[in-house]
């Protein structure tokens, strides 16, 4: 009987402290909090570091799902990470390591030059590859929406490197032709 009484007190304590326990927790660890939506990408993208980790791949999955991705030969070290990110959150159809080097076909300055045939999204990498370096997703109006082809690779930016995902049709003819 005493233990039943103790259990009743424990329930009462749980109820009384429920809100204060939540108040002490960071938002994503709170027990009861209504999110603006059930779309997890939309909700977690409000967090800067998460957007940096996965933003590039979520942008690709939204605009060019089912893409065939080639990784630049000088990105071979990052190939395993780029492959699972592009296949998982990028919703790519295939990811292969190319024999070509992205830097031989273009430069960041060329890609980002004032032109109206591209759209650019950018962010800072914080995850598995190119930590604390910028990423760019450069999409051209030339791309074939039915079977998009993308090239991933590092390009020089200032004194460092940026991770660039670019439509293959924006590169010099003959490069990355598998």
């Amino acid at each position, binding site marked *: 009987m005493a233990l039943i009484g103790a*259990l009743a007190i424990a329930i009462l304590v*749980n109820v009384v402290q429920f809100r204060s326990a939540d108040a002490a927790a960071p938002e994503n660890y709170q027990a*009861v909090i209504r999110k603006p939506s059930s779309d997890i990408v939309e909700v977690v993208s409000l967090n800067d570091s998460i957007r940096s980790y996965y933003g590039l791949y979520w942008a690709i999955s939204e605009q060019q799902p089912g893409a065939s991705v080639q990784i630049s030969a000088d990105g071979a070290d990052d190939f395993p990470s780029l492959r699972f990110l592009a296949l998982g959150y990028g919703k790519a159809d295939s990811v292969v390591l190319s024999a070509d080097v992205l830097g031989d076909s273009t430069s960041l300055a060329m890609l980002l030059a004032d032109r109206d045939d591209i759209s650019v999204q950018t962010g800072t990498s914080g995850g598995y590859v190119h930590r604390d370096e910028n990423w760019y997703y450069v999409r051209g109006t030339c791309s074939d929406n039915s079977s998009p082809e993308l090239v991933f690779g590092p390009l020089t930016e200032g004194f460092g490197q940026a991770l660039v995902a670019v439509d293959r049709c924006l590169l010099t003819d003959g490069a990355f032709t598998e």
Partner: protein
Amino acid sequence: MIIEIGFVLSMVLGGSALIQVAGARGLGVPILGSVAGLSLYLCIGAVQVLTPITTSPILTVILVVTLPGALWLWRRFHGAHLPISPLWAGIVIAGVTSAVALFRALPQFAWSNDSLQYLLSGSLIASNNITNASIFLLPKRLIAVPELHAVANFGDEYYVQSITPLIAGLVLALLSWMLWESLSTHLSKRALIVLIGGGVLFLVSMNRFIFHAFYINGHMLFALLMLVVVGGGWMLVSNDSVSKNALVTAMVLSVGALVFVRAESPILVLLMILPILLDRSVNYLPKVILLATLGLSTIAWQIFIAAVYLDQGLSVVFSVWGLLAFGILVLAAIPLLKWSFIMKRGRVILVLVHAILWLGLLVLFVREPEILIRSVSSTFENVVLGAGSWGLSLILIVVLLLIASFIPLKNSVNLRFPLTSFIPLAFLLAYLRDGAYRVGDGDSLNRMWIQLVPVALMYLLVTVAIGERRRRSAATSNIQTTASKHVAK
């Protein structure tokens, strides 16, 4: 939503068919059946990942219904008594459908970086690319939680919104059912309802239970499967109200599934089943199946992980070799189950295991005291000072457990040993991961406590019900004996 309903119903119906064939009746069919279906789904999914066949969750869903369904039809065709109540079947299907719809309508979920890694793996499973998941994902996140969410990718979503809350609901249902079946011969219906209602209220009023009910992670899943293994193990040796075949079926599937939930699962599972393995009242065959399931699934997973390391041109890390050796030793230990020298000394072995765990911790503490000091200090802040959002809940459970431990309960070791052995093991794990636990909600040990809570509550409530009664019965029989002596005089 149709994908989600189909996915959940496949586990409920497939598992119910299997568990009914195994001998369960009444409410045990949908409740124990749902857990068995969930575990079966995870085991089939694991086989798909570990073999060259597709990892598509559509195939998993089909197999989880058709395999038990075919078995059910075959047994029924051969004259087995497998009754169906259309009314109850309709209630279960309508209930599951409504629950899925309700949880999908709620914009309520909790997440952390780990959640996003689980969902990334889920996406890779759905597109049959999990072998590309690399050492960043597979050794830490494994495949059970990703498998649960993989099917959402077919609806252009990343997670199955209703699955974690439904698992939390299943924890409540399973705990209630286990208590009802175990205690209904000892207590009046009214007392039983008060007891079970109190237990359920305690859980749903607990902040961290509600958090984990919506948290995209594997802790609530682990809690459910642990309740099946430990609670089911206690029922196996303590009462005959439920078919032992049905209990063993659910326990074996849960052991298989648990290995794919968390990296440290094999060690935890061995501690969960050790009291059963050493109990002479349990038949040899269930023990062999439990141990073989643990050993084989551990070996299969570690070989797969080793292959992932080698595929990336990396050397296989020590933990993989260690757990592979663990799996082989578990298999090698099967013949020992027939050795009466060991079986007669079950209690001594359990004490020895405790001693080894504490001794191991002491040795590591002497070599590197900083990790344990920081871990204990962080855990104190998380659990006692409120940094882990537990409030007083865990302290209250511990106090109640301490009181309960003074009340004698038959076979209490089955419920108690997995709880008490977890304490030294949890701090040993800090050494194995080479990093102290930290202050805050996100700390892994702070999140792991929920895995023990349902079993702890079951131990507490069973002790309240039967332990006290035994004491009273003893007191009553003493009075009766004294009275009869007076009459004789």
